[in-house]
Structures are given as C-alpha cells and as structure tokens.
C-alpha cells in the first residue's frame, strides 16, 4: 500500500488503509507527513474523549461499556489505548484490548464494524500518551468516527498530556486509591471535566465521593466568595446556594460498577452534555486552538532541529561549549541568525 492508496482508502472507509496509516504515523515512516497533510481538512468532526486514572482503576472496562452505550446511540467509535512500553528494549505488552467484551453474542464489539480498536505503546514516553497519539486520533477522525476514546497509560504521575488531545477528559478513581496528597500531586484532578469513582461495589466509595466533592466545590471562585461572607450569610452557605455562583462547567461526579455496567448510561449522558456545553460556550474552540498552537510549535521546532542537524556540525559546536570556548547562548544566537538571514 502506498501513500495515495492509504489516503484514498481512509476516505473510502477501508479498514486496512486506516490500520496502515496509523502504522505509518506511529513509526514516522516516509510518507507519514503526506498522509497527515492530506487528511487534515477532514478532521475536527469527532468528539474526542480521554480516559485517565491510576493503573487498574477500570479505564478499559469503562471504555468497553461506554463503547457499547454509544453504539446503541448510533455512533461509530474509534479507540486508541496506550499502554507503557519500555524505553530500553523498545518492546511492549499491550493488554487493554483484553477488556473489550461484546454486548450480545451476535454483535460483539470485537467484530462490530462500527468499532475500531488500536493498541499503542507509549514507547517509554512520560505524560501518559505516545508521541504520536494525537496524530492517530486525527486519522480516526478523518476516517469518520463520531466518538474517539483515548485511554492513557495508568502510571499515576502527571499523566496530563491527555488534555492536549481530548475534548472531554474523564478522570477515573476508585475507593481507597492513594490519599489526597498523592492524587493532588499527580495533577489529574485539575484536568477533569468529569469524575468517575469506579468499583462502587467496594467499601469506601462514599468517602472518596465526599472528598472529591469538596475538591470540586472549592474552586477559586467559591473560596473568594467565602472569604467575603459574614455570619449573616450562614443560611446561604448551609443551603449550598453560594456554591452555585459559578456558571462555569462544574465537573460532575459519577459512581460506576463498570464490570456490571452500573452507572454507564448516566456517564455517557454527562459526556454528551459536556460536549454540548463546550460547543455552545466556545470552550471547544478555545481548547482546540491552544492545541493547534502547541502542535504547530512542536512541528516548527522539529523542523528547525532537522535543519540545524543538516547545516551545522553539532559535534564540533558541542565540543566548543564543553571546553568553555563558547557559551551556549551565544552559539544559539549565532545558529538562529545564520538560519534566518543566510539563505
């Protein structure tokens, strides 16, 4: 399959072309840039949903159940599931697919033509996603999936790259997983559009939900309001009225028992509601613009790096810096001015 066949294949809903396009992009094979250029005009139509959370909280199980739910609602669902890969051997064991189950014997998710599942290795990268996950999402988008799920690596430390890819971020917790400090440190609370406390069949759900609620309610705005209140306002505090000051999106908190499908349709409703809200409020456009900016800058930097490698003798330059003959700031200025002004 060459690049033209791949691009035309994507536009005519050829699964093998889709699968092959992902392989090209993931491995940066020659031609991958052409594929991404060709499909760009058809992107931006899918609702991209990120699922993140500590290892084993039930991300894949929830994703499988949500896929069933959105299939019932008539949506085509594309999935990218990222699992950790070793930076040393380069290998990976990708196991998220394992959790995909069918909803009835004749129409299993595994063979449902309206579902596409792709496993991806992080290839040793931190942040919860692979370097090319965003580009893979674009390919799925161009192919025509209505909903695209992205499951992050579950490592529990700063897996926040998902905000760069997803329109709606679902943060999944379970009872008794880590303490407040660990969760706050991981930085995943701030990125949530929707919270899920999964494994509600286990003890301690109420405690986790209560704690989450207090975190969500204590937005900056509310703290500000509280600080200006007097005793006279006590009734408003007790009734919870003051917490409703915000007309921003307040992340809802769902409880689920994913392996039994409990709470899934409510969660799906919330996900759709958030997308609607984002579309109407302009939040979607804002998020996508800042994503485009990050992406553009990354591409530019990459191109500049390649250019420098081509035009300059790095080994020589680095040697001068290490031997204190030149400082890196001056060298950088020299390189930039040569790149910009000498054609």
């Amino acid at each position, binding site marked *: *399959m060459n690049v033209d066949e791949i691009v035309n294949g994507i536009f005519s809903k*050829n*699964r*093998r072309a889709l*699968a*092959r396009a*992902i*392989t090209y992009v993931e*491995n*940066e*094979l*020659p031609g991958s840039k052409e594929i991404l250029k060709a499909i760009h005009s058809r992107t931006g139509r899918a609702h991209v949903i990120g699922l993140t959370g500590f290892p084993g909280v039930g991300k894949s199980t929830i994703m499988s159940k949500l896929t069933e739910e959105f299939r019932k609602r008539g949506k085509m669902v594309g999935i990218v599931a990222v699992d950790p*890969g*070793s930076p040393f*051997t*380069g*290998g*990976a*064991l*990708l*196991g998220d*697919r*394992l959790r995909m189950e069918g909803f009835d014997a004749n129409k*299993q998710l*595994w*063979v449902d033509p309206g579902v*596409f*599942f*792709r*496993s991806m*290795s992080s290839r040793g990268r931190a942040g919860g996603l692979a370097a090319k996950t965003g580009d893979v999402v674009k390919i799925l988008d161009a192919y025509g999936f209505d909903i695209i799920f992205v499951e992050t690596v579950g490592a529990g430390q700063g897996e926040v790259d998902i905000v760069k890819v997803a329109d709606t971020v679902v943060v999944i917790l379970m009872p008794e997983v880590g303490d407040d400090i660990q969760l706050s440190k991981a930085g995943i609370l701030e990125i949530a559009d929707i919270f899920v406390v999964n494994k509600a069949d286990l003890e301690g759900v109420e405690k986790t939900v209560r704690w989450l609620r207090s975190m969500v309610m204590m937005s900056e705005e509310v703290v500000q309001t509280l600080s200006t209140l007097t005793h006279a306002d006590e009734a408003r505090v007790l009734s919870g009225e003051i917490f409703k000051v915000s007309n921003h999106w307040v992340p809802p908190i769902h409880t689920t028992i994913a392996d039994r499908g409990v709470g899934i349709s409510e969660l799906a409703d919330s996900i759709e509601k958030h997308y609607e809200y984002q579309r109407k409020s302009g939040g979607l456009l804002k998020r996508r613009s800042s994503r485009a900016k990050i992406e553009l800058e990354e591409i530019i930097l990459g191109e500049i790096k390649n250019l420098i490698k081509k035009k300059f003798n790095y080994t020589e330059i680095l040697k001068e810096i290490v031997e204190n003959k030149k400082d890196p700031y001056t060298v950088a200025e020299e390189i930039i001015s040569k790149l910009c002004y000498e054609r």
Partner: protein
Amino acid sequence: MEEKKIRVVLAKVGLDGHDRGVKVLARFLRDAGFEVIYTGLHRTPQEVARAAVDEDADVVGISLHSGAHMTLVPKTIQYIKEYGGKPEEMLILVGGIIPNDDIPKLKELGVDEIFIPGTPISTIIEYIRENLKKKKGSINER
C-alpha cells in the same frame, strides 16, 4: 526516522483454558523488543482476524490445544482476508500439539510455521526476525 516496530497479535483460540504458555511467550517477545497485543482466552477466528487487521499485525500467533486446528486456523486466515487484511503479508504462526500429518496441510493453507510445545522461545524470536523481512510486497520486506 525510527525503525518500524514489529507488532505481534497473540491469541488463544478455542475452548481450552490454559494461557500460561502464551502469557510467558508474550513477555519474552516484549523483552525482545516486539509490541505484543495479547488478546486473552477463548477468542473466535473472527475476533483474532479483526484484531490482526485493526492492529496492523506483522505476526499473528495462534495458540490452540483443542484439536480443532484444522478448522479454526483456516477460518482465521479466511476472516483476515474478509476484513480486508493480507494474510500473505503477515507471518501466521501456530503453537500447540499438532499431529505431524497436519503440519504440511496447515502450511498449504497459509500457515508459515508451527511451533510445538517445548520450542525454545529464542527459536521463535529468531524465526520472526529472519522471516518477516522475506515477506514479498509487505511493509517489512527488506
């Protein structure tokens, strides 16, 4: 440009419930630098085929001990074609207790190699590395 990673879909087809062997194999293949998609127990030929196509597998490893290999393996290959895949560009490997008489028949049907229980994993890894690049017209041809 990075080197293209070798993607392996490993499946346990049929009714029998042992997957310790495949899981161990999966770990060794990972340590050898492959990206291994482990698909779990009791997969049907359709499910394995779909995974092979969607995951753009270079290697499909089918493990079975149930004795139904002469129907399940060809079915898997047939479904890969049906879903738009090119089994002839993939390495199709079968693991399990396969009677000697059936080995040439399976190869005739499109299986590249059969590994009986007890085959050293290094042999399998070596086999994949050597034979993938000989696949005519495939993305791995060297």
